[in-house]
């Protein structure tokens, strides 16, 4: 990229119930982040906030988010799509050279204020799909899972193994709202079917939460932290909305998003060059579809990856040591949380979930039915 940009620091907060008002959640989070880094809001040149009007329940959702985030009278803008897009736009602003320090904040209250499945219902085409009530977040997801099983001969048990691994990893993540330290595929199998093969424990938990991150130009970043996390590449790609016109078993748009990010980051062999990946999967079955599209594993290899533990914490390609979307899913900001988790890994702050020696990390985000829109960021401990 034409200018070195780094993530200085990140902060997260997550809960599974209506604990505190959104404004206070944001104030405590952002003020805490400023204090940790040793700056005030006056040190921030540009603010990019991320939330969803429909989910928050009023137009221009950020109206009441600006003040607690410190954006009073500041250069501020808002992103409705997943929070990774907010992080990408923030990076672009810094790349322009017109900003040296920026704050990105994403938040959602899918556990308390509004139902994520209803947000998805209102993403349906209003004049056709929404009229018929056949498609919804769960039925489309189940069809995508079935498509992968049919194309590659995968079994439901492969997905249950993935879910169990993520729930175990989530037990190592202080921010997770759902976890089980000794989770097995049998636990997932024992949970109820929603739409086959989706079982309750293989679906994302409703979560209230927020994620904040300070980004800066290279020089400024080095003044603010000893461990800047460098943004090496980013990309995104959007597929068609229509699930009946897509090969649901693979994700062409995730592949293209990855290729665009890899090109910028100089990555030719992602499975070798990436040390840890944080993939946005709302459902366990999505993890192999996306990580395979990103070149981390061979196409159709979910069963082998699970049985050999390749994506486990000690495996050759750890995926979602945080527990990913099965531990907590901050609706509309999940991709931003994936970036934050990569930052924790690359700063060596991931505690028991630390991938030792992690130098290069991949964060992925998605939006829409069956991950219609995909985004990727590649991060590194190494400058330049």
């Amino acid at each position, binding site marked *: 990229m034409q200018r070195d940009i780094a993530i200085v620091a990140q902060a997260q907060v997550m809960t599974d119930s209506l604990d505190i008002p959104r404004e206070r959640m944001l104030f405590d989070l952002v003020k805490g982040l400023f204090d940790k880094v040793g700056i005030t809001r006056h040190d921030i040149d540009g603010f990019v906030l991320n939330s969803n009007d429909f989910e928050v329940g009023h137009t221009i959702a950020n109206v009441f988010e600006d003040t607690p985030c410190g954006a009073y009278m500041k250069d501020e803008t808002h992103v409705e799509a997943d929070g990774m897009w907010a992080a990408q736009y923030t990076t672009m602003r810094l790349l322009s050279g017109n900003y040296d320090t920026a704050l990105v904040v994403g938040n959602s209250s899918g556990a308390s204020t509004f139902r994520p*499945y209803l947000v998805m219902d209102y993403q349906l085409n209003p004049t056709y799909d929404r009229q018929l009530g056949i498609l919804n977040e769960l039925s489309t997801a189940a069809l995508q899972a079935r498509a992968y099983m049919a194309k590659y001969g995968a079994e439901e048990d492969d997905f249950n193994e993935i879910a169990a691994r993520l729930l175990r990893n989530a037990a190592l993540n202080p921010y997770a709202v759902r976890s089980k330290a000794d989770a097995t595929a049998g636990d997932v199998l024992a949970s109820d079917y929603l739409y086959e093969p989706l079982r309750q424990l293989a679906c994302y938990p409703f979560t209230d939460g927020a994620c904040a991150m300070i980004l800066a130009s290279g020089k400024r970043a080095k003044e603010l932290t000893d461990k800047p996390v460098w943004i090496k590449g980013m990309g995104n790609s959007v597929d068609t909305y229509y699930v009946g016109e897509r090969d649901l078993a693979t994700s062409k748009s995730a592949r293209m998003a990855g290729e665009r990010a890899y090109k910028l980051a100089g990555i030719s062999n992602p499975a070798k060059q990436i040390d840890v990946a944080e993939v946005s999967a709302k459902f366990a079955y999505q993890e192999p579809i996306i990580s395979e599209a990103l070149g981390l594993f061979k196409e159709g290899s979910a069963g082998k990856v699970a049985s050999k533990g390749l994506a486990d914490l000690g495996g050759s390609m750890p995926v979602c040591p945080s527990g990913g979307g099965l531990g907590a899913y901050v609706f509309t900001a999940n991709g931003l949380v994936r970036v934050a988790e990569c930052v924790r890994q690359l700063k060596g702050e991931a505690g028991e979930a630390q991938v030792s020696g992690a130098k290069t990390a991949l964060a992925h985000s998605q939006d829409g039915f069956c991950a219609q829109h995909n985004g990727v960021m590649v991060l590194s401990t190494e400058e330049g």
Partner: protein
Amino acid sequence: MSAQQERIVATAVVPLDFTYNYRVGQYVERYIKGLGQKKIMGVKCPGDASVIVPPRKYCGRCNEIMNEWVEVGPEGTIENFTIAHVNLNKGVVEKADTEYIVALVKLDGATSLLPAKVLGVSPVDVEVGMRVKAVFKDPVEDSLEDLSHFEPAG
């Protein structure tokens, strides 16, 4: 978070009660008129020759206007399906009284898959590749619901 330390004494429940009015557009109107004659109409893209049902005007891949109308079905093949154990009612998961089949059906002559309910076959017997046929409401009402569901063909 310190919910335990604080007693929540008030929550504001705020319904939003309003209606959006959409013109469905000439393509969906023509599709509905077709259903009223128990015909399923699709459109063909001049660029990649794909036949799309339900019809819409624009092909994303080719950035072209799809303008050739083609009758498809009424029979087709189940390409993918899921067995539903629940209903989503305004975003709330509710257990379904009986399990039911949601399928993606490839209508004869179409390229795209149509999301549809399949009745007349037990969820344990349904399979990919099964031939099905469209069942229309009788009498038809000139609405999207005129294409009621699919059932096994023959």
